Structures are given as structure tokens and as C-alpha cells.
């Protein structure tokens, strides 16, 4: 871990989350001291099982926690040298962090273009039209859809959600499970475009994923969370070669014999109900 921390220090962090604790409804402790660093211009992924607190971590960064009666009770979230924990979500969007929420959350009774224009809500320059064209160049199939966004397929809705984020011209995009409910082929396509946007626009990405294979394929650095804590972190190659990660998340532990949960080391795991 120490070695990894040194390596990541070579690029300046745009976002650093320091030991945050998140409490919902003033009683439910969800995050128990989470720290992570996201270097500028990189793709970083946050992996882990359901209920580990991945989405909560993203919401703690974007401020959307506030809309769910949650609060950062300890620690700090530092974005470009500024403390942003417990700020209003709209203030954080204006500072340059845009969260693409789980389940896409596009506005179903609006058209594709109206959704994209909404993405640029915080901007007041006259270049919205150009940016819509740019989004269409990343997602050409959105251009053909003239009806209501609610009738788009799941993959198209995800593309629209990502396009809407690009419209805000953010410095950083937080993606919550972009692969949810998509076919394997579409997951691949969406991730390729995310990577392309990252390269071409220089937008830093923090991606929460269940599809660890795909996420680690594109991210330079990864964190693994379990029950409200970071349990492992490392570079792409470190994580891909880690035996535990292979066993638990990638599903190809090597060796010829068939994998079974019976044979798995269980020390870092929550109880399984299988």
C-alpha cells in the first residue's frame, strides 16, 4: 500500500478524501473512515460488493448525500485545494464535480436535446450548441433519437447520462455503475467512450463498478471497499495480479479446477448467503 501511495503521488491529486465517516439519519453509520486519492486526468475505480458504501462515497463527494439525510461527520473532502464536504450539491457542480447517478436518472419526459441542455444548466456561455454537437460525436446514435428520452433503450439512456455530464464541462465526473443493466457488448462500448472522453477532454473520472473486469481494464488505479472501509488499493497491474482480487472480483483465479466458494479464503469477506 505504501508503495502504491508513493507512485500515485507523482501526479497531483485533484480530489482527496481523507478518512471520512458518513452517517445517515444521524444514526446509521455507513462509511467508517474512507480515504482515497484521485490524480488529475486519471481514471480511478472503486470496487466492492453491494452495500459496501461505494455509492455513499460518491454522494459524499458530490454533496448529494444531503438530499438523503446523510452527513459527513468526520474527515474531509478536498477538491482542488478546497474543502467541499457537506456543501450543497449545486455548489459542488459549479466547482466542477458532476455525478452521473446510479440508474442514469435522465429526465424521461424531455427530449435528448433538452436533457443535454439541462446538463449545461450551470453554464452561461454561448457554446452549449457546439457542445451538444460534440456529445453527438461521441454518441452518434443519440442524434437520431428525436422522441422522449424515457423511450430510449438502457444503453442509450446511459450514453445520454454521460453526455449530460460532459455538457457541464466538469473537471471531474463521478460515475455510479455505468454498466448497470447493459449487455456485455454495450458495456464495452460505453467504457471505451468513457475512456475516450477522459483522454480527449482531460476529465478526471472516478468510477464505481460491479463489473470489476471492465473497470480495471480502463482504470489506472483502483480501490476496493468492503463494509464501509477501503480494504485494498493499488495500480491496475497490482490489482489485476492480486490473488484475492482474482478470486473475489475477477472470477478467474487461474488453475484448471473449477472454482467453488467452498475453497475460497474467507477472511476479508462478509458472510455469503450461498
Amino acid at each position, binding site marked *: 500500500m505504501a508503495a502504491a501511495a508513493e507512485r500515485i503521488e507523482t501526479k497531483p491529486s485533484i480530489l482527496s478524501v481523507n478518512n471520512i465517516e458518513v452517517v445517515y439519519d444521524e444514526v446509521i453509520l455507513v462509511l467508517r473512515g474512507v480515504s482515497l486519492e484521485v490524480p488529475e486526468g486519471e481514471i480511478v475505480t472503486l470496487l466492492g460488493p453491494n452495500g459496501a458504501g461505494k455509492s455513499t462515497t460518491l454522494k459524499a463527494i458530490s454533496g448529494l448525500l444531503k438530499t*438523503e439525510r446523510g452527513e459527513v461527520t468526520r474527515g474531509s473532502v478536498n477538491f482542488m485545494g478546497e474543502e467541499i464536504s457537506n456543501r450543497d*450539491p449545486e455548489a459542488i457542480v459549479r466547482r466542477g464535480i458532476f455525478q452521473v447517478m446510479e440508474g442514469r436518472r435522465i429526465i424521461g*419526459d424531455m427530449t435528448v436535446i*433538452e436533457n443535454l441542455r439541462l*446538463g449545461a*444548466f450551470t453554464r452561461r456561455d454561448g457554446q452549449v450548441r457546439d457542445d451538444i454537437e460534440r456529445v453527438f460525436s461521441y454518441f452518434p446514435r443519440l442524434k437520431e433519437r428525436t422522441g422522449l428520452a424515457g423511450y430510449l433503450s438502457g444503453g442509450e439512456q446511459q450514453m445520454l447520462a454521460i453526455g449530460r455530464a460532459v455538457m457541464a464541462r466538469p473537471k471531474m465526473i463521478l460515475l455510479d455503475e455505468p454498466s448497470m443493466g447493459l449487455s456485455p457488448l454495450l458495456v464495452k462500448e460505453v467504457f471505451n467512450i468513457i475512456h475516450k472522453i477522459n483522454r480527449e477532454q482531460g476529465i478526471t473520472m472516478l468510477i464505481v463498478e460491479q463489473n470489476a473486469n471492465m473497470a480495471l481494464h480502463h482504470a489506472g488505479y483502483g480501490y476496493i471497499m468492503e463494509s464501509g472501509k477501503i480494504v485494498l488499493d493499488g495500480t491496475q497491474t497490482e490489482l489485476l495480479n492480486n490473488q484475492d482480487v482474482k478470486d473475489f472480483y475477477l472470477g478467474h483465479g487461474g488453475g484448471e479446477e473449477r472454482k467453488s466458494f467452498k475453497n475460497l479464503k474467507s477472511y476479508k469477506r462478509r458472510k455469503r448467503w450461498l
Partner: protein
Amino acid sequence: MNLDFLLQLVVNGLIVGTLYGVVAMCFVLIYKSTQIVNFAQGEFLLIGAWVCWWFMTEYRLPLWAGLPLTFAFMAIFGVLLQIVVLRPMIGQPIISVIMVTIGLSMVFQALMGWIFGVFAKPFPPVFEHAAVNVLGLQVQSAYLMSLLISVVIMAGFYWFFKHSRIGLAMRATAYDQQAAQSLGVSVKQVFAMAWAISAVVSALAGVVVGMVNGVSSALSFFGIKVFPAVILGGLDSIVGAIVGGLVIGVLENVAEYFDSQWLHIGNLYTVAPFYALVIILMIKPYGLFGTRNIERI
């Protein structure tokens, strides 16, 4: 059969109907963006009309000066009302919020009676002729003006929600509040804006009705007529509000016609919209244009 009379009533109904439609739009605007059923909508008309009357009689301002001042007053009034009274009610049970708006309606009624008296007072004459002749039909000048203004307001609403940045944000907030916040929309601002627009436009309707009938507490009853219109059109549909307003406007006038010609029950004009309200709630509770959710996963 007195066809001329019927035609006159239908035309009157359509004109008053557009006014119902405009006020119903204001009601829907608040309901859609803040989920609050505003029982004090009628009092917005009352307050707007009294304030404008006060500017025009006390300071002898002409209409073109008095009206913008009234709008400014109502905009501030709407925002303050939202911040002081309704914002603390966010997250409270719906019945509490409804009781609050009913309470507001009573308070404003009493307040206006206390300040301006309980008797109807006429507006200073604005038009040279109180009524004009359009194709053989007598139409009140104020109504003609209101028709024009109503159509402009409706077109304005259409443009606002279709093309303006804030309008899109308001629609997004109505559809999915948290998603709107994730886009950088301030829900507090959207709520305040909804109340301000609603108050301003209702005030305009109040002034027009006040010019024709004089300003009195009867104006808030005009606001109550909005309920049948809104229920008919569907609680959350702006288009429905306009259609509902027109239908209710015509309906009450036609009811008046049948009543005066054959039935002789009396006062059917006032009651008919509410019969319609009950029937609609029984057969089509979502109204003509109420929400059909689009869902696709």
C-alpha cells in the same frame, strides 16, 4: 330557443375560461414543481387585485404603471411566502401542508377584508367603452384585453418551459428532484420561482376580473373554480389546465342558459362546475391529461 343569447354565453364562457385556464396553470405550476396543493390560489387573485386597485386609486397611477408595480409586489410576496411559510414544511406530511395553505387562504381573506373593507369597490375606468361590439356580440373590453393577455401568457409559459434554462430546470425538478440537484439545479430557487410566477400571473387574472366585477372577496371564489378545471385537465398537466379552464368556463355559462330557459333551479352557474368535478373524480380521477409514467429499464 334563444340562439343569440346562447352564443353570447358561450363566447363569455370561452373568455372567462381562458382566465380559469391561466389561474389553473399557476396552480399546476406549484403542484408540479413543489407537490403542494395550493388552496390559497384564489387569494392570490384577491391580493393582486386589491394591490393594483390601491395603486390606481390611492396614487392615481394609470394601469400601465400600476400593473408592473403589482407584479413586482406579487413576485416578492410569492418568494417570501415560499421561504417563510412553505419551506419549513418540506418533508412534512401532505395533510399538514394542505392545512397550511387552507389556513393561508383564510388569513389572506380576513386580512384583505380588514385592510380594504368588505364591500366591492370598482376599479377606476380604464377603457373608454366598458363593452365593445364584436360581430354582433357584446364583449367587455376588460375581457377582450384579458383574452389577449391570457393567450400571451400561455405562449409565454410554452416558451419558458420548452426553451429557457430555468424552465427546463423546473421541469426536471418536477420529474426527479434528486436528479435535478445532481445537475446543479437549486431546488430552493426553483420552488421560490414557482411561487413567484404563480402569484404574479394570478394577480393579473385578479385585476382583469376586478375590472369587470369590482374588487371584493368574491374574487377568491373565482380562484376556487380553478379546482374543477384542474381536476378535469389532470392535476399535473399544464395543457390540461388550459383545456379544463375552457371547458369549465363554457360549462357554467351553458348551465346558466339551460337554467334560465327551462330548469329555473337558480344559481346553476355557480354549482355546475362542482357537479362536473364530482363526476370527473368518479370516472376519471387522473383527469384528461394526468400523468402517464414512461418507464423503461
